[in-house]
């Protein structure tokens, strides 16, 4: 759908020029990066950088670590936010302004300040608590808060939560069962969307991990770039491609799982 606010018919040359400039600015650097990732000056063009990434011994550990942290973050975020947003919609709608403001706070407080504060508060804590990479999970939960709240809120607003809950409770479901078997299946689009966003954000997070000295994937990437230019270019493109992939999956999901999902309660209950 295009805007209904269409200019009077006249050749839109100015607009086309702007769009071309915009496309050049965004795709130009990607093309340039690709060329420099395969350009070995006097040795000509080759895909050595990509094959050495695939065969690298060092890349596995940070990538796996980042992935684990991301998965734990997703689990923890949902354990916290799903019941909270559900409860807000059902029982305490008057708490909405408070929760909304708190959920915007991570946008307001820059990550670097969060790190300074956390480092400050946890000074003197035992090494086994602050020295492990999973120390990052509680902080990343906060980073994921804004979009998690928004998507869950929008998802629950779109369904008749009160009636569904009433029906399930009337049939003897516990609150846990209501959440697991009724609410979540109805929110598939919203839930999946924020899962992917959360994964992508956590796997790319640099500021907090680097300042707390954990060797996650983005930190590894930064280090690799100081060693070999082609490798850094190749890795950056891969990072871009991974985010691109997450985004396309997200789009596909939100198109396929429409609003009519409320009908399909029984089908998804077993998952």
């Amino acid at each position, binding site marked *: 759908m*295009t805007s209904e*606010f269409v200019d009077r018919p006249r050749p*839109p040359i100015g*607009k*086309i020029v*702007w*769009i071309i400039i*915009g496309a050049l*600015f*965004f795709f*130009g*650097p990607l*093309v*340039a*990066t690709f060329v*420099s*990732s395969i350009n070995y000056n006097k040795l000509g063009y080759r895909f050595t950088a990509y094959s050495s990434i695939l065969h690298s011994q060092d890349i596995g550990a940070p990538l796996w670590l980042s992935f684990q942290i991301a998965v734990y973050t997703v689990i923890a975020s949902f354990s*916290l*936010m799903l*019941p*909270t947003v559900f409860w*807000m919609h*059902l*029982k*305490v*709608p*008057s708490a909405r302004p408070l929760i909304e403001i*708190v959920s915007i706070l991570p946008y*307001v*407080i*820059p990550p*670097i*300040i969060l790190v*300074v*504060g*956390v*480092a*400050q*508060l946890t000074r003197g804590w035992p090494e086994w608590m602050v020295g492990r990479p999973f120390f990052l999970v509680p*902080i990343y*939960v*906060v980073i994921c808060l804004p979009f998690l709240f928004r998507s869950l809120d929008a998802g629950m607003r779109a369904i008749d939560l*009160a*009636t569904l*809950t009433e029906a399930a*409770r009337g049939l003897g479901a516990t609150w846990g069962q209501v959440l697991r078997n009724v609410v979540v299946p109805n929110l598939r689009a919203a839930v999946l969307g924020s899962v992917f966003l959360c994964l992508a*954000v956590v796997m*790319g997070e*640099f*500021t907090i991990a680097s*300042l707390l000295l954990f060797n996650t994937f*983005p930190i590894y*990437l*930064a280090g690799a770039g100081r060693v070999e230019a082609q490798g*850094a*270019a190749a890795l*950056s493109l891969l990072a*871009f491609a991974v985010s*691109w992939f997450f*985004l396309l999956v997200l789009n596909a999901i939100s198109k396929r799982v429409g609003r009519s999902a409320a009908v399909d309660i029984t089908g998804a209950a077993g998952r």
Partner: protein
Amino acid sequence: MSDTLDGLAASVPTGELVIPPTGSPPRRRAVNRSWWGLAPFISYTFAVLVLPAAAVLFRAFRTSDGSFTLQNIRDMGARQYVVSFRTSIALSLLSAAVGVIFGGVLAYSVLTLARPRWLRSAMLTFSGLGSQFGGVPLAFIFIATLGVTGMVTKLLNAIGWSLYPGFKIYSFAGLVIVYAYFQIPLMVIVITPAIEGLRRQWREAAANLGATDAQFWRYVGLPILLPSVLGAFVLLFANAFSAYATAAALTSGQVGLVPVKIGSFLRGNVTADNAQLGQALATGMLIVVVVAMSLYLWLQKRAARWSK
């Protein structure tokens, strides 16, 4: 809305929370008790979000042995820190202006073009990605493009225009270009609803009353868009101001931005006895961002007037 939800909630069999269907005093107490359901959320965000920010504020006014002082705030007046704040604010203002102008024109161009249809969703999808993109990969992509041995640098060299040493990607100007890569897409995302909210009827009405295109934009179009555009500007400003990863990866401290300075305090690259100064800088940064975001929320409320 809230009344109907309350009413429905009251009719649900609630197990441990018994809500009598009638009588206002008991119902009121039950509503209050429902707030306990939010206790995990409130205590969690308090511990991991509010408390760290408060700790930063608190420490900014303490000496290393814990007594109250304004010395850290005074130390912030030292030339190098004033310069960092000035550099950070200048960079954020400039990159926000670049984002607003180019992103606004780009969004307007795409959204008001009737064909091709796929262009709109392509732009929005790409903007979603671009606005989130940053940090190390972004820095490397621009080093590979406009760095000393970057592809575009080489290309320009070949046609006899040498960028270096006049221009450096790890300089202030370089940062403006790199930040534009996420600022322009963010602007596209933020301003799209406002542009799509412009009604064709307004323009027709203006034309029927004899207004020229310029008059329409001067007296109708721009005043309606103004709160949205200003709001977007403030949001982009805050976005650039709090960015750390991209600048850190690109400049390795060559451009003394406030977040980079705080980062070096945190890494202990600076003498330990003035660690509180880092907290003071963080406080200054927090104040700038909080002011910017409050302004944004206020402007957004003004902009919402026209969204119905």
